[in-house]
């Protein structure tokens, strides 16, 4: 080594403390040093000449620069060494300024000694410094700008002006960001939108700018210059055919707090945030399927018809409720209502009374709407055997598709178990008959009293020319009674008893009746027997003996309550052992059971718990079975466990062309809505079969289930469901009148207004029908796109601090407390009140207004942020000034911590607003109390005078601070850039690199970096754009010398470095010689990987182990 030591006096900064000549004398004694020189400014022209001469004259191969820190002048001396052909690592720095003369200014002797050591250490490390490679990377001449607010747009336009292609990505529906919400801007009080709109237009029209709204950045990988970016475009559900006429908004029933209007006004599910939005196309906010729709077997959009009921549009509601379901009136009465069990409102207080609302719209509108026959378009007739819910639904769907349908029904009435199995008091016959009539009005022919296998055969139907047959015969017979004494006189079967009753007969029952069974049929039978006993002149004496506890489930609670009110006795978990009697029933022998810990569906008997109940009639309701007459004359049909075997996907039986569904088929549950769902699947399957399309699985791909977050229910005020009136208990025993009444229109609207609109868009279809351009497209899905860009600018902005976190201030609890953002919307001519200031509780113009500063800012408690939000003082001043100009009589007081107005013309503006009569009081508020009239009591301590003040105001406005937006937090994670206090993106150096991030090629602008005003955001955006232009204009970039590199011979591929790297610059190769590889384009030379490496394989350029040890151990 031939090293030269160059001692810099730094114009006295160093030589004023350290004596240079003795230091030089010492340096000359060091091993390897062949030249020592002193200069006043070694970084200046003379110093550079001195170095050049020494290299030439003395043949130096290392330069030891004893001066300031490497961070300041490192690049200067590296460049000198590079130009002198000494390589990339020929300079060793001895920092004798910041590390010595500055900090030991008053102890020169110690400083002298320390300087000697520092210089010696640098000479020692210089010996181990070897040349480092650098690589050239070519750059993609395009850029990604994340965030379409004012900063993002400014950066994009600047880049476009330089001829760089820009992808401008915005998460929201429109560009514009926070500035688009402002009424006016300070200090000039000019209209915010007037300044912004031209920028929106020019950005939209710029050929170099590609706008991606409703888009998230999912991944950014690769090196600077050639970043690979993955974008996820969320569906807009509206195509570019949209002309922006707004017809859809007029018909959308869903109203949701508008985030653009800061929650003080509502918007519809299909919306455009503001008139000048870019792009101007509307969008639908859809979070998936609501829980009610997901739970429904036919996926009725319950949220859709509930929203329409809430809007008083009952006819539209009926269209939605009856769309997938021909029996809305029936289901409004007898459905198991899994939608209510799934309803998110249940986590607040009680689920919405969905079934009752459905019944309301179906009963109110159903009878009034005429049904027009469907036109026949297909030649093949279809036969449906069984006119129950499955058969009738299948018939309706096939009729809609244009098929001629014939229904064959063995009973003298259509409707299946709905008509013959459910008593009048629960489902009146005229209701079901009306809905059957609506199905038949479409065109299907109904042939009653036609039993398959007896009056006709399936084979015969095909011979007659039917293209397909659908079997929906149901389970029409009670299961055999597997009990001793089952054959005794007085033992009735529930299915048959109810059928007799519903066909006009009067089954004979005794004075003491026991009903056995644990389901709906048993309960219907028991409640019917009470009425039959009443008609026969007996006092009600009916005991329902349930072998299990299913009826105790919450879904049965209302029915159980009604049954008890009518006088039914219930015994749960009772196992019938024997029906007693010789020829006629005299009683029943039972044994108690108890829940089984291992299988809750199988209770176990309790030994020694036998008991007997006296009875003269026993009604058995323990299951139903298939009447399989139809199988006669149907070759190739297979039965399975007493049901027709069908293919789960195609609904087809083992005989080609014969389909089955409902209770008779081997797939499905035994509820009305499941039967209707089976009918729908059957209709689709038959259509596929007849049209020759491949029989595809009928299990559709469900969209995600939209559920409110855990916090959302907590934000809803409790309001229990509107109770449904019922006929009083004893009174209803006397007849077959329907027990439950229907909601009045007023009750229905009130109940519907409890809906939480879980999925936002309810898919009611009103907009689709209203759109004159046919622009609404529900089939749009998410699209993933990959881009390659040279550089990235992060301009993802801020969000307003949630003032509700400062609970004592009452925001969200007290009606007349707003944030400055909300006030700005109220003061905006384009806002919800057209610029009229009114307080939320009563719409009155407030006369006394208090504004509170630093809400969530400059706050050391855990619910706030420590930083100053920079703009709030002037934002409040602006809004106060606007109020004073519009309402000169208004008294506006601003309670502030310190008034900060450091921007250009800001202080002057503050003084002007003071002169306009706005009062400023220095003091913070502990709590804001609401009085009965909605006014607000504010207590504060005036910290100028030390006096406590208390005032009552009409309106309080909170200056909620600025926080990093969710987009900023997300992009920081995706891009791998560091964030600092408040979640804002941290710049690479607060002074020297204020728009760089710690990832090369990525820059930050606007409030994503920290709170700032609009001009500051734009200035920073243009600075970031200039950095990108500078980077991309050369076409290539060189990697740094100070990057890490792994030695594959030593590396054990443990992966510690991969995990440690904050830049994601390290990866492991695969195979037998797996080792770590550092991408020098990405590495920023922090050295964390080298420090973590357990074997020493990973070394950082300029800071190898040898260099560091030599320096540290001299």
């Amino acid at each position, binding site marked *: 080594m031939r090293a030269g030591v160059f001692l810099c006096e730094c114009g006295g900064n160093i030589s004023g403390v350290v004596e240079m000549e003795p230091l030089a004398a010492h340096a000359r004694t060091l091993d390897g040093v062949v030249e020592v020189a002193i200069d006043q400014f070694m970084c200046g022209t003379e110093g550079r000449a001195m170095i050049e001469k020494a290299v030439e004259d003395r043949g130096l191969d290392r330069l030891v620069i004893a001066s300031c820190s490497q961070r300041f002048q490192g690049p200067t001396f590296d460049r000198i060494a590079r130009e002198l052909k000494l390589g990339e690592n020929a300079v060793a720095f001895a920092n004798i300024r910041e590390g010595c003369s500055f900090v030991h200014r008053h102890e020169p002797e110690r400083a002298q000694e320390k300087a000697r050591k520092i210089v010696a250490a640098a000479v020692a490390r210089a010996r181990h410094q070897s040349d480092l490679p650098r690589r050239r990377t070519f750059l993609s001449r395009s850029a990604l700008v994340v965030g379409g607010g004012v900063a993002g747009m400014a950066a994009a336009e600047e880049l476009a002006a330089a001829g760089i292609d820009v992808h401008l990505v915005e998460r929201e529906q429109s560009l514009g960001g926070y500035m688009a919400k402002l009424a006016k801007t300070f200090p000039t009080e000019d209209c915010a939108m007037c300044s912004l709109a031209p920028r929106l237009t020019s950005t939209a029209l710029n050929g170099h700018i590609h706008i991606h709204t409703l888009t998230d950045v999912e991944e950014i990988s690769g090196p600077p210059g050639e970043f690979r970016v993955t974008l996820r475009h969320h569906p807009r559900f509206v195509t570019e055919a949209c002309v922006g006429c707004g017809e859809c908004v007029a018909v959308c029933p869903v109203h949701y707090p508008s985030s653009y209007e800061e929650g003080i006004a509502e918007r519809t599910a299909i919306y455009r945030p503001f008139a000048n939005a870019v792009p101007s196309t509307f969008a639908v906010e859809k979070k998936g399927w609501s829980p009610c729709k997901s739970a429904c077997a036919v996926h009725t959009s319950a949220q859709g018809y509930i929203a329409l009921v809430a809007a008083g549009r009952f006819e539209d509601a009926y269209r939605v409720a009856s769309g997938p379901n021909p029996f809305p009136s029936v289901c409004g009465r007898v459905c198991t209502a899994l939608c209510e069990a799934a309803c998110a409102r249940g986590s607040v207080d009680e689920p919405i009374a969905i079934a009752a609302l459905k019944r309301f719209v179906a009963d109110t509108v159903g009878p009034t709407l005429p049904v027009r026959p469907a036109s026949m378009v297909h030649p093949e007739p279809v036969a449906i055997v069984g006119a129950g819910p499955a058969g009738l639904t299948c018939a309706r769907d096939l009729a809609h598709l244009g098929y001629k349908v014939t229904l064959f029904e063995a009973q003298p009435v259509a409707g299946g178990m709905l008509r013959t199995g459910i008593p009048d008091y629960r489902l009146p016959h005229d209701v079901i008959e009306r809905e059957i009539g609506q199905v038949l009005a479409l065109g299907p022919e109904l042939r009653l009293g036609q039993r398959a296998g007896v009056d006709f055969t399936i084979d015969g139907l095909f011979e007659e020319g039917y293209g397909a047959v659908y079997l929906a015969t149901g389970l029409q017979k009670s299961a055999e009674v597997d009990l001793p004494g089952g054959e005794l006189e007085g033992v009735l079967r529930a299915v048959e008893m109810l059928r007799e009753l519903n066909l006009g007969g009067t089954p004979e029952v005794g004075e003491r009746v026991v009903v056995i069974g644990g389901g709906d049929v048993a309960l219907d039978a028991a409640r019917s027997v009470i009425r039959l006993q009443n008609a026969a002149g007996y006092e009600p004496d009916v005991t329902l003996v349930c072998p299990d506890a299913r009826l105790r489930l919450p879904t049965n609670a209302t029915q159980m309550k009604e049954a008890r009110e009518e006088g039914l006795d219930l015994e749960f978990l009772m196992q019938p052992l024997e029906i007693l009697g010789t020829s006629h029933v005299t009683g029943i022998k039972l044994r108690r059971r108890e829940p089984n810990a291992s299988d809750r569906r199988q209770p176990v008997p309790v030994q020694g718990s036998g008991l007997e109940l006296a009875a003269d009639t026993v009604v058995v309701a323990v299951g139903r079975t298939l009447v399989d007459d139809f199988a006669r004359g149907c070759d190739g049909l297979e039965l399975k466990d007493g049901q027709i075997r069908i293919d789960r996907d195609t609904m087809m039986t083992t005989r080609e062309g014969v389909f089955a569904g409902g209770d008779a088929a081997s797939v499905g549950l035994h509820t009305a809505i499941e039967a209707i769902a089976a009918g729908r699947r059957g209709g689709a399957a038959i259509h596929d079969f007849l049209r020759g399309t491949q029989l595809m699985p009928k299990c559709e791909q469900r969209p995600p289930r939209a559920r409110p977050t855990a916090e959302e229910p907590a*934000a809803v005020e409790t309001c229990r469901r509107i109770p449904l009136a019922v006929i009083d208990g004893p009174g209803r025993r006397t007849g077959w009148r329907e027990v439950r009444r229907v909601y009045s229109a007023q009750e229905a609207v009130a109940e519907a207004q409890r809906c939480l609109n879980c999925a936002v868009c309810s898919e009611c279809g009103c907009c689709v029908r209203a759109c004159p351009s046919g622009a609404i497209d529900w089939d749009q899905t998410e699209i993933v796109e990959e881009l390659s860009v040279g550089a990235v600018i992060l301009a993802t902005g801020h969000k307003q601090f949630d003032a*509700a976190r400062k609970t*004592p201030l009452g925001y969200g*609890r007290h009606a007349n407390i707003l944030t400055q953002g909300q006030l700005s919307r109220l003061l905006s001519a384009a806002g919800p009140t057209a610029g009229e200031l009114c307080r939320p509780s009563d719409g009155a113009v407030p006369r006394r207004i208090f504004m509170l500063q630093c809400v969530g800012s400059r706050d050391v*408690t*855990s*619910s706030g942020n420590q930083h100053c939000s920079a703009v709030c003082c002037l934002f409040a001043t602006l809004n106060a000034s606007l109020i004073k100009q519009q309402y000169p009589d208004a008294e506006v007081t601003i309670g502030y911590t310190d008034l900060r107005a450091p921007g250009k013309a800001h202080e002057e503006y503050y003084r002007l607003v003071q002169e306009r009569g706005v009062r400023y009081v220095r003091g913070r508020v502990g709590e804001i109390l*609401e009085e*009965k009239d909605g006014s607000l009591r504010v207590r504060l301590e005036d910290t100028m005078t030390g006096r406590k003040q208390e005032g009552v105001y009409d309106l309080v406005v909170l200056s909620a601070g600025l926080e990093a937006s969710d987009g900023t937090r997300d992009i920081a994670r995706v891009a791998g850039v560091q964030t600092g206090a408040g979640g804002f993106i941290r710049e690479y150096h607060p002074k020297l690199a204020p728009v760089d991030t710690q990832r090369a090629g990525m820059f930050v602008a606007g409030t994503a970096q920290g709170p700032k005003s609009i001009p500051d955001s734009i200035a920073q955006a243009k600075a970031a754009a200039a950095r990108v232009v500078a980077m991309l204009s050369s076409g290539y970039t060189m990697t740094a010398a100070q990057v890490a590199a792994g030695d594959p011979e030593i590396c054990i591929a443990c992966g510690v470095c991969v995990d440690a790297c904050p830049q994601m610059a390290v990866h492991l190769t695969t195979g037998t010689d797996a080792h770590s590889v550092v991408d020098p384009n990405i590495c920023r030379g922090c050295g964390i990987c080298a420090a973590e490496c357990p074997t020493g394989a990973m070394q950082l350029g300029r800071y190898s182990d040898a260099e560091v040890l030599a320096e540290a151990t001299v």
Partner: protein
Amino acid sequence: MSARFTKTPDVPRTHGGVLLFRSCLVSGEYPGVEASTKWLFERLGIEYTVHPEQTCCTGLGYYADLIPIDTTVALAARNACVAVDDGHPIVAYLCSTCYAINKKARSILTVDEYRARTNAVLAKVDRCYDDRVAATVQHRHVLDILWGAHQSIPGLVRRRLDGLKVATHPACHYCKVFPDEVLGSSEDYMVPEELLMPAGAIPTGAYNEKTTHCGAGFRQRFVNPSISLAVTGEKLRRLAEEQVDVCVHMCPNCHVQFDRYHDIISATRHEDYPFVHLHAQQLLALALGADPDTVLGVETHSQNVEPLLERIGASTRAPMAGAAATSGGGR
């Protein structure tokens, strides 16, 4: 627009190792609070002990300027030693004054000089507040422990509180002395209400003057009764505006101030405050089936809580059939 209340985050369940720190005010004024707490610990399967060597925290004496800080810190150190040496290092406080003063002593005892001076005194009773004790002892309010077991509560409810509107009076010495260590929000403390919600109670959440103190102010209640009771009265008026049925407490000092003076303030201000005061553990134990007489000890209350008990079917005149009415007690 914003949350009705902020939900309290879940915390790990405490299974055992709890020393139930007895409180002078609880034992002297509302012994049912201690009995209810023991009853709840047993019902929820939380192993605990009551230690005969535990002494008073001295809080009342300290705040009345009767006891010097050195004495308070020495006793806090000794009580921490008692808990740790007994294998019950999780000290659960019934009273927020005990809670805060012991926690404050813990921070004082991080200073070497204070610790050395304290240990010099403790040496006389063969105790030493060393690093082992400092690192092991935990100071928690009883409600912290109960919140850890809140997921078990829905399955244990035996008396519904449907329709009962409850509001929390947050204890200052729990919420304001160590605000960063409060479960959930120190400005909108919700644990008592959230514990009672599974039984059907309606939470009030934040309300006007929620964070205002009870007015007791230790000796202020006696030396400046007009100011003390004016504060209490203001709070009673705000609670009445919220139409609450029960104001739930977490500190016996607040409980005394409200329960003992409720009717007096009502009479002197000619205002009706139609609600009662119960300690959080009392109402929770009631919902879980505890006997109002033998467990809650409602006969020690100044207010008549019988109408409330009747409303939820827990009248002392007609004890609930089948309700386990154990009287608590140590392990």
